[in-house]
């Protein structure tokens, strides 16, 4: 379930990137011309989604890694410390 949720955040990030690139890929924003309303809305919305998806993805990933460390702590604390010979 955690992987699916992280995948959803990555998909949001990817959709934001697509929204930024869509006006130029679909050629409804000519290069060098002033930006249209449609291009401006897509790029701003895409930037917000990219930012939200990126930050949420890495925040969730950091939390998962912290959980793994917390779970591994009691296990490694009971194991004997190897002594170098």
């Amino acid at each position, binding site marked *: *379930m*955690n992987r*699916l*949720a*992280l995948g*959803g*955040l990555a*998909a*949001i990030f990817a*959709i934001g990137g*697509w*929204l930024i690139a*869509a*006006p130029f890929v*679909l*050629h*409804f924003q000519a290069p060098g011309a002033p930006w*249209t*309303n*449609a291009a401006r*809305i*897509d790029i701003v*919305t895409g930037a*917000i*989604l990219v930012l*939200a*998806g990126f*930050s*949420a*993805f890495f*925040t*969730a990933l*950091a*939390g*998962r890694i*912290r*959980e793994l460390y917390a779970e591994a702590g009691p296990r490694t604390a009971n194991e004997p410390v190897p002594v170098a010979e």
Partner: protein
Amino acid sequence: MGLLARYMSGLCAAVLGLCAAGWLVLAPVAFGYRASAPHQTALADRATGGGLAVVSLLTLIFWAIAWRRKLRADGVLPRISRRRARREERDVRRRAAAGQAESTPDPAQVLSELRALLLPLLAESPAAPEPAGPEPAGPEPAGPEPAGPESVAAAEPVVVPELHHHGAVPEPRSELEPFRLPEGAPEASEPDDGDTAEAAAGQPAAAAGQPAEPDSYPFAAALVPVPAVPLDQLTPPAPSGIAAIESMLAGAELSMVGCGEEETW
């Protein structure tokens, strides 16, 4: 805070994606570029908005389930939801009812099984001989021998040709042994002893008007006279020859092992 930030960030991003999807779907209508802009612009925004809505909704559901599981694992929420508990309780009740219906045994079948189990036991019990002592080492005749009170009474005592030192261990008793008085004790059936003779005749001394002696045995009438047996026949013969030497060596070895000095041997 770390745990809360993890799930909250995922949920917030999913909610933000839902809002952005709605915004993308409504923007062409709100800003009026659906008619003026090329057809691809509005189509791209609506398609992207629809896809973003689906992805954001799924992400929101996944994060909610993951957080709920985590809270259950930490004990904040009850382990089993009410719906699941109700379903499990219904399953258990249904299974118990089915098991009760299946576990009711048929009395006729049980009786027939019991009869089948008891028949071989009843057939074996009268023909099962009990060995009274060590048997001589030799070929035994094949087949069960007819065992009865006549054959047991006519059986001769087993003669062991040579007793090993392990032969001093008494055999398990298979039947009651007759009571024997110690040697030298006055026998109950002697006519010289007046008290014991009266007791054996069933006339207590008190009934005859004579006071009973304090050292008289009150149950002397119940004693059965047994002929005296020599002491060498009651106890097994002591090991002799090489058996005696082996016995002594085994005793010494046991004592040394018990002292922890087996290295000296």
